[in-house]
C-alpha cells in the first residue's frame, strides 16, 4: 500500500512536469513568433484569440489532424521511430532539474521540487542528450531523400563536435561545487549573485551558451535544417504528428539547455540578493530560464547563419582548446585554494 502511494506520487510528479514542460514548449513557439515579429517591426500572430494567444493550440490541432505521409522508398520502421527517438531524450532530462527549494510535505509523504536527485545528474542529462542525435541521423537516412540525408549527416557531425566543449565547460561548475548532482550544485551557489558560477566561470558560461545553441540546432548554427540549401534538412519528408514531434523536441531541448545553464551557472532558484528571498524560488528559476530563452530568440533575429566549414573549424579550433584551458586553470586554482 505504502509502495503503491509512493509510485503514485512519482507518476503524478512525472505527469505534472511533462504537462508543464509541454505547455511551456507550446507557448515558447508563440513567444518566439511574437518577439521575432516585434524585432522585425510587424505584428505576428493576431487572429486566433486576443493577440493570437490561442495560436499554439490552433497549430497543435492542425498538425494533429494532418495526413501522415510516409514517402515511397522510405524505411518505414526507422522513419516512424525517429521522431520518438528525438523527443524522448529531450523530455527525459527534466527528471533531474530542481525547479524550486521547498518540498511539499503531506502526512508522511514528501513531494520534492524535482522528480529525482541522482548523484550523477549532469552526466545523466549529457548521456541522454547525446542520444538525441540518433533520431535526427536516422530520420534523415530513413526518409530516402538527399536533402534529409545531408541534413542528418550534418547534424551528427555538428552534435559530436560541440558535445565535447559543452561537457568540458560544465566541468568548471562541477569542480567548484564538488558534485555532479543538480540539487547540490544549486545549493552550493547560495548567498548572493557573486556566488554564482557565472562570476567565477565566465569563459565556461560563454562556451556553454554557444555549444548549447549548436546542440539544439538553433540559428546561427541551424545547418542541419538550413532552408536555403536543404529545404528543411532532416525533416523535409515529415508531415503531421511526426513533424510536430521534431518541432516539440527542438523547443523542449531549448528549455532543457536553458535549465542546465541556470542550474550550473546562474544559481538555479537562488535569489540574487538575500533581501529578495521573499519572492518564491520557482519564480527566480522561471525568470532566469525565460531570460536565456529570450536571449536565444534575440540571437536568431540578429545573427546570420554560419558556413558549415566555419562551424566545424570554430568548434574544434576555438571552443575545444578554450574549454580545455578553462578546465586546467579551474583545477589548478581549486587545488591551491584547497591547500590554503
Amino acid at each position, binding site marked *: 500500500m505504502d509502495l503503491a502511494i509512493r509510485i503514485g506520487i512519482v507518476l503524478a510528479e512525472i505527469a505534472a512536469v511533462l504537462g508543464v514542460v509541454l505547455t511551456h514548449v507550446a507557448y515558447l513557439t508563440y513567444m518566439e513568433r511574437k518577439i521575432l515579429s516585434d524585432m522585425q517591426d510587424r505584428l505576428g500572430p493576431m487572429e486566433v484569440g486576443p493577440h493570437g494567444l490561442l495560436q499554439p493550440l490552433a497549430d497543435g490541432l492542425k498538425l494533429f489532424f494532418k495526413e501522415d505521409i510516409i514517402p515511397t522508398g522510405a*524505411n518505414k520502421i*526507422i522513419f516512424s521511430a525517429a521522431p520518438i527517438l528525438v523527443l524522448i531524450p529531450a523530455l527525459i532530462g527534466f527528471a533531474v532539474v530542481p525547479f524550486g527549494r521547498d518540498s511539499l510535505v503531506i502526512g508522511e509523504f514528501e513531494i520534492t521540487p524535482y522528480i529525482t536527485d*541522482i*548523484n*550523477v545528474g549532469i*552526466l*545523466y542529462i*549529457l*548521456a*541522454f542528450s*547525446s*542520444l538525441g*542525435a*540518433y533520431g535526427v*541521423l*536516422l530520420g534523415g*537516412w530513413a526518409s530516402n531523400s538527399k536533402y534529409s*540525408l545531408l541534413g*542528418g*549527416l550534418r547534424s*551528427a*557531425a555538428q*552534435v*559530436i563536435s560541440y*558535445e565535447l566543449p559543452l*561537457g568540458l565547460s560544465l566541468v568548471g561548475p562541477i569542480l567548484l561545487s564538488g558534485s*555532479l548532482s543538480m540539487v547540490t550544485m544549486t545549493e552550493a551557489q547560495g548567498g548572493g549573485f557573486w556566488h554564482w558560477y557565472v562570476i567565477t566561470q565566465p569563459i565556461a558560461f560563454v562556451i556553454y551558451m554557444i555549444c548549447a545553441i549548436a546542440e539544439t540546432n538553433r540559428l546561427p548554427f541551424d545547418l542541419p535544417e538550413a532552408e536555403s540549401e536543404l529545404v528543411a534538412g532532416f525533416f523535409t519528408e515529415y508531415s503531421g504528428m511526426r513533424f510536430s514531434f521534431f518541432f516539440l523536441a527542438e523547443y523542449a531541448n531549448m528549455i532543457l539547455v536553458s535549465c542546465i545553464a541556470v542550474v550550473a551557472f546562474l544559481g538555479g532558484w537562488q535569489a540574487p540578493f538575500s533581501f529578495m528571498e521573499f519572492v518564491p524560488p520557482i519564480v527566480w528559476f522561471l525568470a532566469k530560464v525565460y531570460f536565456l530563452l529570450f536571449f536565444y530568440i534575440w540571437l536568431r533575429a540578429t545573427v546570420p547563419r554560419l558556413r*558549415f*566549414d566555419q562551424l*566545424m*573549424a570554430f568548434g*574544434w*579550433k576555438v571552443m575545444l582548446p578554450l574549454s580545455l584551458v578553462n578546465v586546467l586553470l579551474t583545477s589548478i586554482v581549486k587545488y591551491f585554494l584547497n591547500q590554503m
Partner: protein
Amino acid sequence: MTAQLLFFYFGGMTVAGAIVAVASPNLVYSALALLLTFIHIAGIYVLLNAEFIAAVQIIVYAGAILVLYLFVLMLFNPEKEKLYLHRQYPVGIFLGVVVLCLMLFAAFKTEILGQEGSFTVEAVRSMGHTDAIGRVLYTDYIFPFEIASLILLVAMFGSILLAGRGRHLRKRGEAFDLSGGGTPPEGKPKRSDEVMVGR
C-alpha cells in the same frame, strides 16, 4: 527480487541485442541493435551501484562511437557491400572460441575467489560511486590510467598523421596537374575536410 527481475531484463536484452547486431543482414539495424545492447549494459551498471560508469558508457559508446559508425554506414551505402566476409570465417571462429573460453574462465574464477576489498557495497553507497572511482583511479591505479591516456594520445597522433599525409599528396597531385595547364589553385575554395584536419 526486483533487482533480480531487472537484471534478467537487462541481461536478456543485452544478449538479444548482441545477437541481432551480429545476425542482421541490414547494417543499420545491426548498429541500432548494438545501441540497445549498450543502453542495457548501462542499466546493469546502475544495478551494480556504478552510476558514473553507466553514464560514461552511454556518453562514450552510444553517444559518440556508435554515431560515428552510423555516419560511416550511411555514407558508403551498405546494401551493395558483401555482408559476410567468407575468407575471414576461420579467424572469426577461432577468436570467438578464445574469447568465450576467457569469459567462462573469468566467470567461474571470480565465483570461487570472490574477494572483498575495502570498497564494499555499503562503502561505495555511502561515499558515492563517482567519489570512490575518482579516488582509486588517481591514487592506486594512476600508472595504468596514464598508460591508457598515452595510448589514446598515440592513436590521436596517428589519425592526424594519416589524414594530413593524404592532404599533402592531394596537393602535390594538383600542382602536377597545374604544370600541364590546369586552373590556378588560388581561386579554389577550401574543402571542409581540410579545414577540419588543420595545418
